[in-house]
């Protein structure tokens, strides 16, 4: 079985990348292949990176409140490119009231502050597509 390939991305204008970088390292230490996009990526750039890197998982780090605009755009683009089977998860500050809507459009995992790394690793391992 090949290693899971994960794109960790920071969309929007926010530069607070502590969470994105810590999770990128934790996933790498857990044996996944991690590609960190760096800051201020548009949904188009993130989907482009996922396509180019043949990613199984996209992890978005969003703290600024822009998730309601960024996530739908990203999900539409993934569908358009035929990447429906890429697992999308979001970590950051997401108000409770926004969670159902994000799940509805296909974001599978939403991780709020204080989530143990192990929970995130287990979730990704359980839900990402398996390829040989």
């Amino acid at each position, binding site marked *: 079985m090949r290693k899971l390939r994960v794109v960790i991305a920071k969309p929007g*204008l926010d*530069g607070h*990348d*502590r969470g994105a970088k810590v999770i990128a390292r*934790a996933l790498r230490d857990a044996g996944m292949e991690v590609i960190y996009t760096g800051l201020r990526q548009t949904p188009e750039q993130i989907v482009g990176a996922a396509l180019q890197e043949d990613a199984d998982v996209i992890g978005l780090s969003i703290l*600024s*409140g*822009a998730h309601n605009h960024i996530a739908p755009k990203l999900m539409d683009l993934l569908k358009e490119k035929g990447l429906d089977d890429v697992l999308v998860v979001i970590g950051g500050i997401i108000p409770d009231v926004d969670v159902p809507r994000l799940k509805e459009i296909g974001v599978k995992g939403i991780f709020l502050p204080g989530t*143990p*790394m192990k929970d995130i690793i287990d979730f990704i391992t359980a839900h990402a597509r398996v390829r040989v």
Partner: protein
Amino acid sequence: MRTAAETERQRWERETLAPALADAPEREVAFTTISGWPIERLYSADVEALDPPAPGDFPYTRGIHPSGYRGKLWTMRQFAGFGTPEDTNARYKGLLGAGGTGLSVAFDLPTLMGRDPDHELSLGEVGKCGVNITSLADMERLFDGIAVGDITTSMTINSPAAIVLAMYLVVAEKQGAGWRTLSGTIQNDILKEFIAQKEYIFPPRPSMRLITDVFAFCSNEAPRWNTISVSGYHIREAGSTALQELAFTLRDGIEYVQWGVDAGLDVDDFVPRMSFFFNAHSGFFEEIAKYRAARTLWAEAMRDRFGARNERSWKLRFHSQTAGVSLTAQQPHNNVIRTAIQALSAVLGGTNSLHTNSLDEALALPTAEAATLALRTQQIIAHESGVTEVVDPLGGSYFVERLTKDLENGARAYFDQIDRMGGMVEAIEEGFPQREVAESAYRYQQAVERNEKIVVGVNGFEQQTDVHVDRLYIDDRAADTQLARLESLRRTRDNADVARALDRLRAVAVGSGNLMPPILDAVRAYATLGEMCDALRDVWGEYEERPVL
């Protein structure tokens, strides 16, 4: 030869301690601060560390004021901003009415990044993390009914700091308040953006020019304005240790002074208007020692490294804010206690102004009720605890004095390392401080994952039932308003005048003149923040970092 104190210490260890440990071992093999700094069991008289000069005397370890808080309390300055300028204006009037003594503006990400609300990357960000300021018109709305000549205002903005300061100066002008008496602070600290918070626009070198231009302009035109707030806060939030926060912030300060001197300014003309901003984190004694060490290191660097002769150049003044990163989404009421302990450390360390975080800030921007409770926390420390009645009450504490010295020495070692790289700009270009911070952040996270560090409610003492707190929810109304305003502004202003002002700004940016005058002209013409930043982008380009994991 053993001293009497050493002999006595050995007797204590043998006769008193050893039997007690045999009875009941300690909880851990080794104890460390939240930063991972090793802590001994007991600190005793230590001649080198124990007796720093009195408060008000060089190097100000015990404080810059001889009478501490017996004269004037610290400024209670609560950082706030969200939505439209009117939304934030209402919050300010509430804070001033509740006994707040200064304002502190939080800007949204489009403003911080120099983008107008209609830019692609502003999508979903307008008014979310702070107030949106697109042009001078918004700054006028923000301070409507607030006399800027009577208050002090702190503005947390960096890459476009010169532009936002210019907007504030023009508001003062329109209100009839003179620049010479205008008082407040602009953060204007780009180095920590490259190191930690990453809200940079231009490459390091032109960014440094903007900053020294503000130094030069204000020392002539607005001499009471604090032209920079050299910030460790964000470095700490990004995961640094207390020592790294101290060392990188002070070394950033030294870098700014060096660039000012290289630009031909006299140290004693601009350094007295430099201020600092530190994090008040959870490691109580370590934080107190950090503030004391910071004052000491700055005084020495200004006097000995730069030959400053004015005492005001030697005195480090600082704002502090409790640690946002320590707040938990779980059991949010616990955050009130965390904040109180952190605030107390800042006060015992001699902070000159303080922001206390609200209990709901791991979830959203604070509600008005939560922000009021945070302010009350400061007022209780100031008026009920009695800690303000003695100057530097922890002076002479074996532990605090030793830790102060240890942090000073650790910071000096970092200074040497960064000096060898050629300075902080060079160190940043090499990714050195970025790597150090990322490493510490990861190490701390691992310590939490392994339960070596306990965060109450997160990896210890969890509870399943959800505790309800009210939350501020910011919808897209502010974005709609600001977009409509931008459109109307572009229709109603004199666009030829704007174009001329932007051309002048570009021309000065290509050359080497002070950028403040052309920025002020563009502001007065109602050029937008995005247009002014674009003019500078045309000349200088944008910075892109190589991500360091």
